[in-house]
């Protein structure tokens, strides 16, 4: 069995194991660790787009919103009809949740395709602005759809998200990205980032690579959104605004563009930091921002990268 697959299965087994004893864990700790896991999925999937393929996307929160809302519609509106009065057993609930997550991810991927086709002709800051705009459009659309709660948001989702779902999802995201990037086919992502003209000149269809990265990234953002919705049990459009996108981008940059391990580390650190800073109450966000600035000044090449050569911007 290839090593990445082995790691993936081990991670999957570990998350199911931890999930089984989650009843005995400190609820606060469990809560924070689930937030960390969701952040890992978001950061690793955005890293495929921004880090490995070198396309600067600022719309990740938009895809997360698509996944959160559409998976919630499945469990909220289809769930009762499918599971019956008693709400079904663990197996049927699990199947329903898996279907909901897959649906949310697929819809986010489709949104990624729709947005990616026209906008991936743009480069650098132009692409960043266009994806930022699309992310906001998605949010505003949800804000104005009455059936989905409008500005008040959606509430009452069943609490399906468990430790195993979150970290199983994170393991799948890491595994998928690793398989994509470390294959012969996947070197095309890195080639597209390093030099688009040279990549075209050796016969790569760089547009296709960008789309594949964008759609895969959007899919996992959607899955993360679905996990988030069934974890917080209440979502509203404001939770998916562009500051959320920027939060994810910061994780990718701080982790060192294209370094999966670094990006995971940054996702953990940046999700824990606000929790650690909780005692200082109202100064929390100021300190958080200051720490970000200091980290960027001290380690511009990425928090967990030791070679002098920084990641490509």
């Amino acid at each position, binding site marked *: 069995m290839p090593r990445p697959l082995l790691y993936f299965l081990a991670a999957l087994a570990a998350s199911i194991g931890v999930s089984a004893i989650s009843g005995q864990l400190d609820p606060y700790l469990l809560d924070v660790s689930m937030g960390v896991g969701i952040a890992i999925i978001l950061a690793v999937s955005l890293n495929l787009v921004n880090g490995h393929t070198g396309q600067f996307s600022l719309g990740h929160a938009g895809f997360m919103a698509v996944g959160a809302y559409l998976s919630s519609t499945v469990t909220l509106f289809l769930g009762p009809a499918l599971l019956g009065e008693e709400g079904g057993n663990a197996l049927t609930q699990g199947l329903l949740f898996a279907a909901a997550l897959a649906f949310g991810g697929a819809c986010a991927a489709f949104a990624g395709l729709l947005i990616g086709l026209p906008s991936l002709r743009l480069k650098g800051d132009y692409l960043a602005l266009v994806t930022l705009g699309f992310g906001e459009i998605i949010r505003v659309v949800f804000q104005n759809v009455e059936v989905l709660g409008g500005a008040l948001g959606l509430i009452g989702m069943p609490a399906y998200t468990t430790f195993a779902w979150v970290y199983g999802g994170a393991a799948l995201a890491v595994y998928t990205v690793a398989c994509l990037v470390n294959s*012969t086919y996947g*070197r*095309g992502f*890195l*080639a597209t*980032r*390093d*030099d688009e*003209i*040279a*990549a*075209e*000149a*050796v*016969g*790569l*269809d760089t547009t296709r690579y960008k789309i594949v990265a964008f759609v895969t990234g959007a899919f996992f953002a959607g899955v993360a959104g679905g996990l988030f919705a069934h974890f917080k049990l209440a979502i509203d459009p404001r939770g998916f605004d562009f500051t959320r996108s920027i939060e994810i981008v910061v994780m990718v940059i701080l982790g060192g563009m*294209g370094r999966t391990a670094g990006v995971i580390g940054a996702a953990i650190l940046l999700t824990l930091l606000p929790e650690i800073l909780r005692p200082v109450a109202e100064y929390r966000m100021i300190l958080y921002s200051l720490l970000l600035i200091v980290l960027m000044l001290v380690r511009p090449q990425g928090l967990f990268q030791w070679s002098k*050569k920084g990641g*490509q911007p």
Partner: protein
Amino acid sequence: MLTVSDLHVSYGAINALSGVSFTIPQGAIVTLIGGNGAGKTTTLRTISGLLRPRSGSILFRGESITTLPAHTIVARGLCHVPEGRMVFANLSVDENLSMGAYLLRDRERIARNREFVFGVFPRLKERLRQTAGTLSGGEQQMLAIGRALMGDPTFLMLDEPSLGIAPRLIATIFEKIVEINRSQGITILLVEQNANLALEVSSQAYVLETGRVVMQGPSAELRDDPQLRATYLGGGPVT
């Protein structure tokens, strides 16, 4: 082998090429010379499909490739080595070469091409595991050419292979270019600012000026042309 006729290319409102035509026979080394902004790089990029012409046509082995996307043009054996040693800086030398054979499926052919590249540029074999971005300028140029050779081209376009390279290495690289042409019969279109060198290795030359072909003929004749000498070869008497 390649016929370009009446090519017009513009960047927005600015005309980069206004009616460029030339023909390149099979097996030849043809050079395109001219100063900065004459349209040399634009011509190459248009041929390889990275830019779209406003009008005009490009025929490669009798078939029009004018509107084809870049990756399908490479598949036909026309390979472009872009200006400025564009290697994949974060990939190793080995991975760069593998990317060059991206469109090939035949493992044996890839291995054969790799051996040929190592034969031409033994330096690349020594640096196989090194990250391409840490190579010297000359080595990166060798890698860029080697990567193009990995794709089994029948036609190779080289954009300013002497740019920013130590003088001693320039001679080596030009020798290799001639060697590639002779031993494999690969047709070469060479764009150069170093007109002296380009005219030395080529058989035919075209001189571009502000998007037009202003002079053409056998390289040996152009080398002795007084007007060309004054403009591009730094004047001086014929040697």
